[in-house]
């Protein structure tokens, strides 16, 4: 383990903005993709039900 404390960990040696920015934006994009794919199938299923 290379971190003296949680604070040290979150500071990322002064690169917090870049490191957490990278991971944060990636997580947001993936979460959005999961949500939108789920939504797409839901909408498709609802439309088919309405047509019946």
């Amino acid at each position, binding site marked *: 383990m290379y971190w003296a404390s949680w604070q040290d960990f979150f500071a990322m040696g002064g690169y917090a903005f870049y490191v957490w920015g990278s991971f944060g934006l990636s997580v947001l994009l993936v979460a959005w993709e999961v949500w939108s794919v*789920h939504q797409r199938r839901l909408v498709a299923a609802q439309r088919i039900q309405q047509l019946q």
Partner: protein
Amino acid sequence: MKLSARLYQYAAPQAFYPVAGQLIPWFYAAAVAFLISGLYVGFAVAPTDFQQGEAYRIIFVHVPAAWMSIWIYLMMAFWAAIGLAFNTKLSSMMAQALAPTGALFSAVALITGSLWGKPMWGAWWVWDARLTSELILLFLYLGFIALQSSIDEPRRADRAGAVLALVGVINVPVIYFSVRWWNTLHQGASVSMSAAPKMASVMLFGMLLMALASWAYAIGISLSRLRGIILERERCADWVKAEVSA
């Protein structure tokens, strides 16, 4: 029944839809397991880089995303070509399902690369051969998606998209070899098929775990999107109506 015939039956959307539904949770579970272990190795085990400090930890998301963006493109072009050559609907749907995920991974590679470039190179963006060819890859994905959605007749959209995807394959070796063909600011390959890795093995291990997580996620989400596409495109089929009302 012969094995080949048993496999071919899954080329029918009706047969593949439930199979995909059963496979998805396993790929998601694998993705979560690899992600947790990858993040653990990447943040708790891997040491600080002696040149880049902690900023190098961005590679644990950047490199797997960049690998996936190229690999998904090849898969997309492969399925599009199969759909074009053999007129198999499900193959074309698979290509359609892969495109947004490939676009997402190339966007992640570009964004995280930019966030690494600012502190390391002093610039968010440079018109370097590697960066530019990766940006073209993103535009190829977006072009494929836009072209397909602009054509109303699905089978014509599949054919047009397949031609675009196949022409775009030329960009893949350009991305891969860009760091060798041109004198780029982007560093050369640390991990290549022809030489031993040029990085500490614990860092490499963390990166491979993250790559496996991305791989499992990409398969899971693409299969999930494929199921949505099957419902959209087969909406008039009786089995779809039965599936949805069940």
